[in-house]
């Protein structure tokens, strides 16, 4: 668990981060969202002390990070950079092995762990001896992710990790990112300026502006209970798509028809409405089997949309 208390960073008279506080639970994915210059990256970099704060404290699992040496602290926190920051003079294998080398693992263990991650991140064995400049942008970003994950740190900090990728590659990596079991056990703080990405990957979103937190909450909170006009207008352009992404099927379970289907279990109702809609397309089906708390229902496309709008209307009138 990460607890940030009254954290500030001033550059001269400019207050890049102005006394912010928040908490991130175990295995939670918190997204720091905002425009350029809002202080989100500075906040992130203060958590592994790449930037030393002007004032305030950060606790990871109850321990004050300023009581540890920065090197030791950083070896226990995974870090992924926007421009991957891979060492151009190291092979892929050597790049991934940096932290284990620093932690003085033995060679066999390093080799095994690197091979394991390469496989999980869909990198071929042949690429082990390749240099970063011989890889595509997506592959480089996966190597960057592998490097951050290799020592299995409980906390992962990600600074616009997918910002340099094209849209197609990005959505592919998003899917992999969500599916990767290694990431499910991590507490993650990720910086992005991409609203879609924030809604897709975040458990909670912390929207920042001018060094302060404007609103922190689940994607649905931000969409349906914006605290002010700033939040509303920040999300306006992609509102519909965001809403599909912010609402999970289990949230509208009660609005779905009770057409029961016995037998097989179906999709987990934990998925968003957006990915439910995508499933109709990818499975070319009229109906989807969706399971929630041991109950499986067969749901049609129209039924899902209708239920979603009912839910939306209900929220709007709350």
């Amino acid at each position, binding site marked *: 668990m990460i607890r940030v208390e009254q954290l500030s960073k001033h550059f001269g008279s400019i207050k890049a981060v102005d006394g912010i506080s928040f908490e991130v639970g175990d295995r939670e994915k918190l997204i720091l969202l905002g425009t350029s210059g809002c202080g989100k990256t500075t906040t992130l970099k203060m958590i*592994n002390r*790449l930037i030393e704060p002007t004032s305030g404290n950060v606790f990871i699992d109850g321990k004050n990070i300023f009581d540890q040496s*920065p*090197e*030791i*602290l*950083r*070896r*226990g*926190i995974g*870090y992924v*950079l*926007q*421009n*991957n*920051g*891979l*060492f*151009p*003079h*190291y092979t892929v294998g050597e790049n991934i092995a*940096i*932290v284990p080398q*620093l932690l003085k693992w033995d060679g066999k263990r390093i080799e095994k762990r690197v091979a394991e991650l390469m496989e999980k991140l869909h990198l071929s064995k042949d690429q082990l001896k390749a*240099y970063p400049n011989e890889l595509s942008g997506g592959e480089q970003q996966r190597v960057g992710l592998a*490097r951050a994950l290799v020592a299995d740190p409980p906390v992962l900090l990600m600074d616009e990790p997918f910002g340099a990728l094209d849209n197609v590659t990005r959505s592919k990596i998003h899917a992999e990112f969500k599916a990767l079991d290694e990431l499910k056990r991590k507490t993650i703080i990720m910086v992005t300026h991409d609203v879609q990405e924030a809604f897709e990957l975040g458990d909670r979103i912390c929207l920042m502006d001018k060094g302060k937190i404007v609103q922190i909450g689940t994607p649905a909170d931000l969409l349906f209970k914006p605290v002010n006009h700033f939040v509303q207008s920040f999300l306006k352009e992609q509102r519909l798509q965001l809403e599909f992404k912010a609402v999970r099927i289990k949230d509208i379970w009660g609005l779905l028809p009770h057409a029961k289907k016995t037998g097989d279990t179906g999709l987990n109702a934990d998925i968003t409405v957006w990915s439910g809609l995508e499933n109709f397309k990818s499975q070319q089906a009229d109906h989807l089997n969706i399971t929630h708390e041991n109950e499986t229902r067969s749901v049609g496309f129209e039924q899902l949309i209708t239920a979603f709008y009912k839910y939306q209307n209900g929220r709007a009138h709350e």
Partner: protein
Amino acid sequence: MNEHQQTLWEFMRQQSDKLLMQTLQHIGLTFISLIIAVVIGLPLGIWITRKKYFSGIVLGTAGVLQTIPSIALLGFMIPLLGIGIKPAIVALLLYALLPIIRNTYTGITGVDVAVKEAALAMGMNKWQILFKVELPLAMPVILAGIRTATVINVGVATLASYIAAGGLGEFIFGGISLNNTNMILAGAIPAALLAILFDFLLSRLQYFNFRKIKTATATLPLLLIILASFYFIPSAYGGKLKAGFTPEFMGRQDGNLGLESKYGLKVHPIVISDAVMYEAAYERQLDVISGYSTDGRLKAYDLIVLDDDKKIFPPYYAAPIVRQDALKRLPELENALNLLSGKITDSIMSDLNYRTDYLHQSPERVAEDFLKSHRLLKPLRNGSNGTVRIGSKIFGEQYILASMYTMLIKGYTDYDVTTKTGLGGTKICFDALNNNQIDLYPEYTGTGLLAILQPPSKAIDSLIADNNKTYNYVASEFGKKYGIKWLKPIGFNNAYALMMREKQAKQLNIKTISDLKRYLESNP
């Protein structure tokens, strides 16, 4: 010397021992200084990337050092470090510093910020970041700096021979003072080839990819040290007495070549500039030096001349040489000039030279004092019956003689005098006389014979054994060939000579060059 023009190839083959030795010394000098420059420059370059405040000062200072002319820098080094390898290396390393510091700085500050941030975020400490990230990534740029420094050093190292540090400059500057093109090329071509070779090899290193750069970084220091050690291979030679000769003396038949062939004397001399040789002998860095028998520093540094018992050094009796048309035009001139004839002996000349070269009295004052003491000085007549143009070469003795002649002519004749002193060397002075730009200058019989007339070597052998024969030969040949008259000799013989410290020579009982040879043979 006219019978057969030696080719460059023949010269290089004949001198292959020396050529090899000089090349090794040259490589050694280049790389010793380069290693030290890297050892100083690399950490300094790294340091100023951490303390940006000092980068301007450090780079500025190194830049200023770079602009000091190399000869001047070597000159500054002599009072501080004496002669030989030490000042040469310091001077060379000062030149090598700038490219190394600058490129280290540029290379390290040029490392991608994201890569540095990643290294930091992985938990590397500052040393790990330096050695694992910054230095490897800056290496191509740093190597480019080392490459530049190497090429500069190969060039500047040619000047090391001025201060007895050896290298290919011995041939180059020996060749220039002897007007021997083969000798110049025998030094210049290998020096150029070394520069090209090292530049090429380092450029290979520079473009190694990352796969090989680790090996490259490891082998480079080893290679540098091996190359640097070349300097010390030749120094395994050498006898008990250390000899130092000027580049000119090294290459002359009436110099070291004659010592080897006629006396069988092999002293493995180091090559050193005339400017510092005497002092080096005085300070016991050298025991035997080549010099001129009337040099003022003989007296200043308590040196004595070894007797040339086998007569390999031709006589260099000084006498004014005058255009015959000038003698006709100015009839009183000859008598005035002859007033000095027979008046100045070796020891007197040496004393006069001592006063100008060492006590730094003006040549005019020295000339005036001498004439006064010999009752030759007469009040000036401020005549306007014609003008005598007097020339001189560019060293003290010639200035003194030119001043004396000026005073004698002005006191004893009704002629006016203009002087053109400081005419570079024999060739320039003689050309000025021959082309009627001056009327007279003091010349030496040996120079007239060997540098100007250059008769076949057989004729030389028979001539130089006898002073009068030499004088008569040059007098008649100059008259016939150039219409120039040799007046009566002044008296002293400013010949080449081997010299030792008086005290040491007495201790070892060495009076002649043959004594020296016997001593060296019995004390190997």
